[in-house]
């Protein structure tokens, strides 16, 4: 400094080195500033326990709704996921159609270029299958005559995707003289999967909406805090605070609010799943199922915490961006 030459002793004694001289000093200053913001924001959150808790619980409910729906879909997916949807058609032939005729009919279907495969299930085979899978084996033994018809399982080519084309094919088979009744075997799976797709999309939209809710609730909380600490902001600016210094505690407040809401939401979802686990698995056992309730896994928990913390930070950033410019010393 220029004047240092004129009054070296006095000025040097008074003016000491500022923090932020070299890289190490800068790093220490940066670290100190962040530590200060981190702990002061946490301290303030604890100091106003009641209102912080209210905000956090409201946010946690919103977040747990979103993640609860998510885990519900994941569980249903588990049920549906094992089911293979296929275009397979079953043609139940009339009782008076002989096996020879049935094979001929099958051959004629095989010549259709749209068909990939035809499998003939004769009466004996059908009966054996019925006995082993239906649980009515004993009852069937009491019958003096095999009541089951010959069945042709027809698998159209994979390219045969359109539902309408499939309906046309089905109608064509139904009208054949040999056929008593034709049906699409796994159509209900397709329908279920479509319903699931709608549900998943609905949940995604709902989650976005709830996420936006979390964002704006955080923003409003931070706005109130900013308003309450107006004097502090103005004084800090007067004694040389950078915008970064002013922003930091509020961003950290947003982070803490989001993070604690995420943690609370995790507990809410997990407790609900624990309550539901036993009855659901009992129900599954009644249907001979091996359904296990899925909980939020490690990655999902991590995502939950990261997303809710981010929403908190972004929410407060929005407020700071739009409101802080108005807070200037006069």
């Amino acid at each position: 400094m220029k004047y240092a030459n004129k009054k070296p002793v006095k000025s040097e004694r008074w003016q000491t080195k500022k923090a932020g001289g070299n890289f190490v000093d800068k790093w220490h200053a940066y670290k100190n500033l962040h530590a200060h913001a981190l702990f002061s924001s946490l301290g303030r959150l604890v100091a106003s326990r009641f209102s912080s808790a209210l905000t956090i619980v409201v946010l946690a409910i919103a977040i747990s709704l979103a993640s609860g729906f998510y885990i519900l879909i994941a569980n249903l997916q588990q049920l549906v996921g094992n089911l293979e949807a296929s275009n397979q058609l079953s043609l139940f032939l009339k009782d008076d159609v002989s096996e020879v005729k049935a094979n001929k009919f099958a051959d004629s279907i095989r010549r259709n270029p749209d068909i990939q495969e035809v499998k003939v299930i004769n009466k004996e085979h059908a009966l054996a299958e019925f006995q082993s899978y239906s649980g009515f084996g004993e009852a069937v033994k009491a019958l003096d005559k095999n009541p089951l018809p010959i069945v042709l399982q027809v698998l159209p080519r994979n390219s045969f995707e359109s539902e309408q084309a499939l309906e046309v094919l089905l109608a064509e088979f139904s009208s054949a003289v040999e056929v008593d009744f034709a049906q699409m075997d796994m159509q209900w799976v397709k329908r279920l999967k479509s319903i699931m797709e709608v549900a998943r999309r609905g949940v995604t939209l709902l989650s976005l909406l709830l996420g936006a809710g979390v964002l704006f609730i955080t923003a409003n909380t931070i706005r109130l805090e900013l308003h309450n600490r107006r004097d502090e902001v103005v004084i800090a600016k007067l004694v040389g605070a950078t915008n970064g210094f002013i922003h930091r505690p509020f961003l950290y407040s947003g982070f803490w609010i989001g993070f604690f809401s995420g943690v609370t939401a995790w507990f809410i979802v997990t407790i609900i799943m624990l309550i539901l686990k036993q009855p659901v698995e009992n129900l599954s056992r009644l249907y001979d199922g091996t359904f296990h309730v899925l909980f939020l896994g490690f990655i999902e928990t991590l995502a939950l915490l990261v997303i809710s913390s981010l929403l908190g930070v972004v929410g407060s950033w929005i407020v700071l961006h739009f409101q802080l410019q108005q807070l200037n010393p006069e």
Partner: protein
Amino acid sequence: MLKFEHVTMRYPGAGDVLRDVNFHLSRGEMAFLTGHSGAGKSTLLKLIAVIERSSRGRVFLDEQNLNEAKDRQVPFIRRKVGLIFQDYKLLQDRTVFDNVALPLVIAGYGHHEISRRVRAALSKVGLVNKERKYPAVLSGGEQQRVGIARAVVNKPPMILADEPTGNLDPDLSAEIMRLFEQFQQVGVTVLIATHDISLIKQMNHRILKLDHGQLVTS
């Protein structure tokens, strides 16, 4: 240290608050800024703290042209200027220690360095045993001394005071002024806006007098 060159400050609708102001304060100089209410004292101080920028002319602090300073440089300019206010501007929900520590926290000092410097500043203003108290329980004179400790804790080369004794009785005022003289003696430039003529006449320092925005004596 501080130089005003043909500085004019015009507020829309209010006319010229400062008109062609020229003066220069060297380092370690102490001066009083006087004038009737509305003469432009506060506006002049605001220009130095870059709370306002002049409409015309140039203000130099430490050889930096404040009119050309970018917004992101303003906080660092303010760190060179210790500001003292008539209404003290203390944070009521913070202790004396935390109030004084604020500039150091802002500058990113570590915990130990902050403690050391805050205690040094408090002992300079004679409040070392009050560091755990809240401003509300202190007298006006004590609160102003907290304000002064906060202004000098970062060892700025310049101190600006806006009516620092406006709320204090004559004895306390004289005490506060002696404190400013002590800072001047260690090389700090001090500029005090006041209309307490009797007080400044007792002290032998330069007087800048503003009259309707114009500098009449300097």
